[in-house]
């Protein structure tokens, strides 16, 4: 059982979700995040140019059984890449245990 965290472009969210849906990964959490990196976003307000290093992305948090790990990562990379700098990152973690609150089921049974 693994946890996959993927930081993706906001604009790619729908495509990534569709790609995950295609390989039958249907359960995950996501939220909008702000991060820092090398990229600078140029902005203008009332004649003053300014830049911010704040980068807006969406973070997906997905827990899958071991057999799903490779295809989940492939699906995210295939659907989330534009080839430009700033496409995001994927992090893979071990997940010790999972529980379904309604039934008390554990392990992959709890989310499959």
């Amino acid at each position, binding site marked *: 059982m693994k946890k996959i965290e993927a930081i993706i472009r906001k604009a790619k969210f729908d495509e990534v979700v569709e790609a995950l849906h295609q390989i039958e990964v249907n359960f995950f959490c996501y939220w909008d995040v702000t991060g820092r990196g090398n990229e600078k976003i140029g*902005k*203008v*307000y*009332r*004649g*003053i*140019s*300014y830049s911010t290093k704040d980068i807006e992305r969406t973070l997906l948090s997905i827990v899958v059984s071991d057999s799903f790990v490779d295809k989940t990562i492939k699906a995210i990379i295939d659907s989330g890449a534009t080839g430009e700098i700033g496409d995001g990152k994927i992090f893979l973690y071990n997940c010790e245990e999972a529980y379904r609150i309604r039934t008390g089921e554990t392990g992959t049974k709890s989310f499959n």
Partner: protein
Amino acid sequence: MELLTTNNLWMMLCAALVFFMHLGFSFLEIGLTRQKNTINILFKNFFIITMGLMMYCLIGFNIMYPGDFNIIGGGFLGFSGFGLDAAAAADLSYNEGYTYWTDFLFQGMFAATAGTIISGAVAERIKITSFMLITLLYVSIVYPIVGSWQWGSGFLSTLTDNVGFYDFAGSTLVHSVGGWGALVVIYLLGARKGKFNKDGKPQAIPGSNIPIAAAGVLILWLGWFGFNGGSVLSADPASTSLVLVATCLAAAAGGLGAAFVSGILYKNLDLTMFMNGVLGGLVGITAGADQMTPTEAIIIGIIGGIIVVMGVAFLDKVKLDDPVGAVPVHLFSGIWGTLAVGLFGASKGFDQFMVQLASVVIVGIFCIISTIIITLLVKSIIGLRVSEIEEIEGLDISEHGTGAYADFAMK
């Protein structure tokens, strides 16, 4: 009687439209500042309109229209007593354009505007009590004195033997008076923390709610139908409709002029400059809205809009911090509109231009000196600025004990 009824109805409608401008000012100020100061801004705007009306009732109206300049003769200062005069009001031959009551209400709505102009410029760092004291004195005393010099038939209205000052709806008497006050107070108050970095370079402090600001500008534009339309002082069909056409054309031209120039200068289609440009056009046409042909109104409007863009850059350059652009819009464009009466339209001419220029200077000097006195007086009693930590945390919490958007995360 029928004519008075028609005229009076129009004037009351215009008074209502000018009242509505206070919502426009509130929205514009909220939109162009940060969330953490929203209640503070609304509080100031509520104070201005409530205090403004009370003080105008108590003394302002009778300083501005004293009839007889009984304190300093020659049209400098008069006062015809406290409060409103029910006996004068009962006489319906008071004026063929409006009743006494309507006259008070329409002029009272104008008076508060001068204080509102200061409110936007000093936003996000002034102590609320200091602001209340400064605007109380400014709106109740300085504004009506300047108004009496022209609209109260004082010395500006007959400045030379042949030519008097001309200010149809108040490019100088309302907008510049507010603008001068704003300029002096922001100079004495200093910039918001973070507006200029250590090297003195201006920094952007983006407004929190551009849609609200945009609504504010459109409401102000609507309000100007009353501001200028009512300044005809009757429902005269020829004059009112021409005034509204000139007003709207100048607003449109001002917006386009500002959008175009800021687009070229900054390679960016800047909405807040577009919006300020509309206001620049409106302030610009206010002095001569009944004098101009449509073409002249458009020219005045375009230049008014461009002046606003340049004015915003100029203030940044001289390190004055005006979050909403009140000084460029009301002062710079107000001066332009006043001078434009000597350059365009029915009264144009060298003599008229010189009278306009002299009046701009006289009003400017009077407003600057009186604002310096008032502001330094208030500063010596209770100070001007909130503390640095209060400024960072926001005036809503430190001055009013709560935030404007309780359910939203603050930024």
